């Protein structure tokens, strides 16, 4: 793998990637048990109900955990941060941290983060997070 991985949407995840392309972070919610969930599926992983909907997330969350990757990775210049953000809506996503140095002194767990979008190709924009203003 010499190049950065580009996601290939499936019918079940197309709404997510359509959203990021329009600058929206979309998660899903269950109409039966009212839980939010991620990654995308046409049913609720908490209760099995197919009665689910796509909802727009606020894009706000907090830094839940991270590493600073010093290993080579296609499309990245190490060191760079790989983080987990916990959204206000309760679900967690992997992200890089943009607009902040990969320095433990600058990365405090639970610091507020907000979403931004990184255009990878004409079809794929990747949700990314940065310190909240």
């Amino acid at each position, binding site marked *: 793998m010499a190049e950065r991985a*580009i996601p290939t*949407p499936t019918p079940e995840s197309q709404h997510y990637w359509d959203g990021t392309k329009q600058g929206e972070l979309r998660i899903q919610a269950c109409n039966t048990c009212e839980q939010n969930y991620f990654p995308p599926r046409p049913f609720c992983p908490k209760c099995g109900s197919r009665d689910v909907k796509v909802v727009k997330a606020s894009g706000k969350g907090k830094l839940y955990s991270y*590493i*600073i990757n*010093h*290993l080579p990775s296609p499309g990245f210049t190490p*060191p760079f941060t790989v983080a987990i953000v916990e959204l206000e809506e309760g679900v967690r996503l*992997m992200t890089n941290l943009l607009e902040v140095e990969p320095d433990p002194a600058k990365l405090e767990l*639970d610091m507020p983060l907000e979403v931004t979008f990184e255009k990878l190709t004409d079809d794929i924009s*990747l949700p990314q997070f940065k310190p909240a203003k």
Partner: protein
Amino acid sequence: MKRNSVAIVGAAETTDLGKIPNLSQIGLHADAALNALAECGLTIKDIDGVATAGHDVTEVVHYLGITPKWVDNTSVGGCSFMLHVRHAAAAINSGLCETVLITHGESGRNRIGQLNRAIFPSLFQTQFEQPYGVTFPPTRFTIPVMRYMKEYGLTEEQLASVAVVQREWAAKQSRASFRDPITVDDVLSSKMICYPFRLLMCCLVTDGGGALIMTSAERAKDFPTKPVYVRGTGESAETPLISQMEDFTSSRAFRVSGKSAFEEAGISHSDVDHLMIYDAFAHLPIYGLEDLGFVKPGEGGAFIADGNTRPGGQLPLNTNGGGLSYMHSGMYGMYALQEGMRQMRGVSDAQVEGAEISVVHGVGSMFGAAGTIVLTNNPG
């Protein structure tokens, strides 16, 4: 499974470990299998069940010349072999086959004849994790640890002490890759791989293999080797996505698998004389000690740093030196089982005197899956 109803009668590693430039991956499977057959006086014709992971079981069957009545290709990462032991015990007990061969071989270092694992761009992992630059295990397996450190106050020094203690065990092992003593300072000044993980907190990458042969406890009495009985087993799976673990401070798969194994075995923690916890990275013995119930949540780091698991300590842990010092081909679970077997046979280079019960716990596909086996040399 029924307690002590099945035994492991053959257990061997490849003739060499570490750098093996003259064998491909399938060759490592075969070398280990032939060693295990030879030590228990069986030939390939006696085998009617085969299990393996990381390699197509049909190729192992064909390469070795076996005509099986039962096969298992369960591949859930490095703990697959714990699951094979469990599945084989069930198969033998229900009469599906009589004598099972479990093989592992991996040219982790020289990468000869390795199967390329398919990476589908549509999988969850490739859609929702890989685009963020995580590829190698050190970049994924380590991600929950900062949360653990914040929740419980685990220090980098305590994390480093895991590698230090295991090197003390490795020093006793003639086949360990690294045997020279190291200090916490050595670990904390080794090359940064993925903050907070440094090189000496990460597993080796070596070549090797191992094999186990299992049969009913009844038949095991006729073998030249000292039988080791399977007293309890457990397995579980959670998620291939490290970002979607339910709890970053504890593995659900560990808890479910460990509880099952202890319940089947009918043992309490104080009965355990010897413990193996798959250590691809330094945090895993900490999570394992807690999730298996040996210590309370948050106490694992201090328990190891205080010397409880080192030679002479109350709970001998990872006595081969572990993936951090002994060897790590990629799917290390087989080597943890081999050291559990040596301890139960009384032949480990770091023998725990009088040990009768060994618990061997494996993890696979990051925190994706787990398997736990309770071994004993005393069926009571």
